[in-house]
């Protein structure tokens, strides 16, 4: 397992995608083919079900070390990762086991149906025969993700660099149906089990943020204006009866949205359409937060499908019955889209993106400002004669987002992050004034530089009121400007309001806690956006 262990070490230390790809290529150059298949399996979320429960692993670790549970938990909160905590706490190995990645995986698969006593014997024997880093890998193989920032896309790019095969084809190959016991690594790479011609996507056409005054765009009737939606930009490909959904990150996400596939199946045409995947209930768009609950699940439960149904707002047509129509003007492609989504399709979860009617540019201001009311994040302006560009091109398409709402709030709780951020306090809870005290309004992370996070972590260490557990209560002193996309009254929140996508804009070192907003001021934002 040495090569695999070296690979993990090399990947986890860097935050540069290219360095990760190089490390993966190095591994592909030396590893046995069977191990490479396991690498793909593990890094694409196709891992087999966990053979040993985490609670058991915790319990065995405490038995071996003799440490009380509170000390185990205190250590866990410092490390931020269970498998790593256990690997660090266990005593030095008494012997050394050397096995390949595929041998370990085969054994772990066989372990699943065994009794807890057998599992315990196996795991304890492995723990006492592995060095710290290997023990960590072993614990990770049992379950949980590696959390080392290797997306499917990164893996696919590495496989492409190694083999010279087109990355999107590889994406289809590794996502496609294959069984580790009945396919060779070479056949998998060459896509013997798939028909890539059916799935091949096009590069997305992307827009820049509007950087001029509207009248400078020319006459209003040369432009098509639509609402901008905050979901997952997606491409639905239907060819020869097969349906594929690609995300903008060039990942195949077909299996995550069975209801979209079902709606598309009834269509006679072959096509490639561009649009937005959204959580859509009773013809209204839900928050991105809701959509997020549906993402990256291995299986979408029936309950999930009912609670958060997913829909698709169609923007554009790229291919029509086998013919690439991207160079045709938008007005023509729009006709095709209308034909497909309004006349032919009879499912209300796949709808066409509405065109906003207007005569003069100045009418758009008010429309944009009210976009937030139905969870749109602004407007899209597209030249009617524009082709479907490859990538980001200036001039033909513009996005014009609503300005975020902002408040000044004080930090009152801090919590350590996970993964790369587990050593610092990166997740904060903010409060505004209420009567003589404070009331929590938002939890946010990101938006700060590493240097600021380090400085804040130092403040937290010095000003923490409670020292046990992962959350630190801190002296209300640091003031931050918090931006958010929407605000609504809420009974579930102590403050009485719920903020949508709160994030830190900047650290207001110039402000003291006396200058933060009051909850009354925050509530005023509900009726008076901006």
């Amino acid at each position, binding site marked *: 397992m040495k090569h695999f262990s070296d690979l993990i070490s090399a990947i986890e*230390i860097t935050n540069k995608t290219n360095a990760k790809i190089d490390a993966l290529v190095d591994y592909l150059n030396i590893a046995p083919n069977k191990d490479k298949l396991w690498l793909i399996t593990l890094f694409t979320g196709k891992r087999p079900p966990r053979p040993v429960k985490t609670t058991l692993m915790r319990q065995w670790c405490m038995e071996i070390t003799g440490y009380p549970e509170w000390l185990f938990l205190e250590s866990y909160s410092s490390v931020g990762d269970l498998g790593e905590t256990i690997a660090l706490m266990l005593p030095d190995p008494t012997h050394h086991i050397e096995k390949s990645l595929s041998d370990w995986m085969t054994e772990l698969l066989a372990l699943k149906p065994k009794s807890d006593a057998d599992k315990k014997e196996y795991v304890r024997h492995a723990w006492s025969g592995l060095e710290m880093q290997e023990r960590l890998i072993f614990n990770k193989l049992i379950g949980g993700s590696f959390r080392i920032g290797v997306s499917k896309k990164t893996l696919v790019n590495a496989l492409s660099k190694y083999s010279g095969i087109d990355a999107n084809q590889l994406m289809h190959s590794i996502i496609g149906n294959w069984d580790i016991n009945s396919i060779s690594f070479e056949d998998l790479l060459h896509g013997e089990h798939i028909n890539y011609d059916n799935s091949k996507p096009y590069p997305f056409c992307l827009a820049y943020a509007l950087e001029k005054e509207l009248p400078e765009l020319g006459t209003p009737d040369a432009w098509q204006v639509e609402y901008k939606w905050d979901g997952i930009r997606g491409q639905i490909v239907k060819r020869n009866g097969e349906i594929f959904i690609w995300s903008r990150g060039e990942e195949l996400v077909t299996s995550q949205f069975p209801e979209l596939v079902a709606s598309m199946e009834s269509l006679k045409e072959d096509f490639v359409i561009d649009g937005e995947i959204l959580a859509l209930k009773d013809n209204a768009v839900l928050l991105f937060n809701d959509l997020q609950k549906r993402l990256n699940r291995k299986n979408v439960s029936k309950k999930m499908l009912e609670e958060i149904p997913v829909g698709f707002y169609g923007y554009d047509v790229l291919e029509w019955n086998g013919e690439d129509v991207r160079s045709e003007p938008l007005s023509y492609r729009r006709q095709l889209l209308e034909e497909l989504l309004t006349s032919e399709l009879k499912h209300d979860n796949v709808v066409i993106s509405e065109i906003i009617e207007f005569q003069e540019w100045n009418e758009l201001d008010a429309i944009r400002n009210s976009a937030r009311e139905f969870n749109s994040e602004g407007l899209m302006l597209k030249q009617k004669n524009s082709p479907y560009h490859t990538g980001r091109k200036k001039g033909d398409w513009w996005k014009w987002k609503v300005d975020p709402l902002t408040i000044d709030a004080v930090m009152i709780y801090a919590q350590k992050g996970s993964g790369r*951020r587990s050593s610092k306090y990166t997740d904060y809870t903010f409060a505004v004034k209420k009567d003589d005290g404070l009331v929590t309004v938002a939890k946010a992370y990101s938006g700060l530089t590493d240097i600021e996070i380090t400085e804040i972590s130092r403040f937290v260490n010095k000003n923490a009121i409670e020292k046990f557990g992962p959350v630190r209560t801190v002296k209300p002193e640091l003031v931050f400007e918090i931006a958010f996309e929407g605000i609504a009254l809420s009974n579930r929140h102590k403050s009485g309001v719920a903020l949508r996508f709160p994030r830190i804009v900047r650290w207001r070192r110039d402000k003291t806690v006396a200058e933060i907003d009051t909850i009354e001021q925050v509530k005023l934002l509900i009726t008076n956006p901006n």
Partner: protein
Amino acid sequence: MKLVKFTKKGIYCIPGKFYLDPWLPVDYAIISHGHADHARNGMKYYLCQTDSKAILKHRLGADIHIESLNYNEPKMINGVQVSFFPAGHVIGSAQIRLEYKGFVVVFTGDYKVKNDYLTVPFEPVKCHEFITESTFGLPIYNWLPEAQLQQQMQDWVIKNQSHNRTSVFLGYSLGKAQRIMKMMEHVDQIYVHSAIHNLNTAIEGSGISLPKTELLTYDFKKEDLQNKIVIMPPGLLGSKLLKKIPNAATAICSGWMQIRGNRRWQAVDAGFAVSDHADWNGLLSAVKATEAEKVYVTHGSQATFSKYLNEIGIPSAEVKTEYGTEEEEKEVVTDKNVSS
């Protein structure tokens, strides 16, 4: 008996009328070692271990009033017998032993139980009351044996050389730097930053021999540094000087590097858990060896470590001090002092 009390200025010896590692100016200060959070400016008189004297003068000024004692060489101060015992933390670091009317208190300052083959190894001292640090007082901190750690670091340098890369180690100027020098001795030529170089000169001035190094000047020739080893203080991570080094592979050397999250936090190429503090088992073995009736736990994981000691039947309490709670903070502060 109450021989010491914990005051706003530092740890005070009542009958002796002196302070141990005080953080505010006092008349008489006994200093455990030369790190900035233990040896501060503004004391009228300093007492330290012989090998620390040159370091303190270098850092606090040549004109300080300072006296020194060898290890295990007692001195009576107002009826209290004061003596130093090796702490194994950095060169000249000492545990301070106080004896008054048969009652013994030992203050560790900072210490390391593992032998680094450079500093005089830690020596356990029996006492009634033991005041211990707890920087790495969690069972997740267990250091590799020195030889194994050295092997890993040497392998890293050799791997870098095979890619024509210069290996840059970031480590605190006093202690860590000399230890890395020792670990890299005979591997290849070692260049050190001026903060480390000046400290080395002071240490060598008191008769201690260190591995051979070159001074890293700001106008170095790129080809001279190619494939070599460079050691600089951690505060220089991201500095212009570091960026000037061609094809550099950087590694942070610190006990905190034991945790993956900490290694990944900094944009460096490697992290080695090289620490000048005792690890979890080191702390426990040191505490047990003293056979103390009461253990006071200072800076680090004091809440956790003291709670655990109480649970295993060793009466313990945590004490708030001004000693660095985070090694990195200490390093940044000290390096500013050095360069000024």
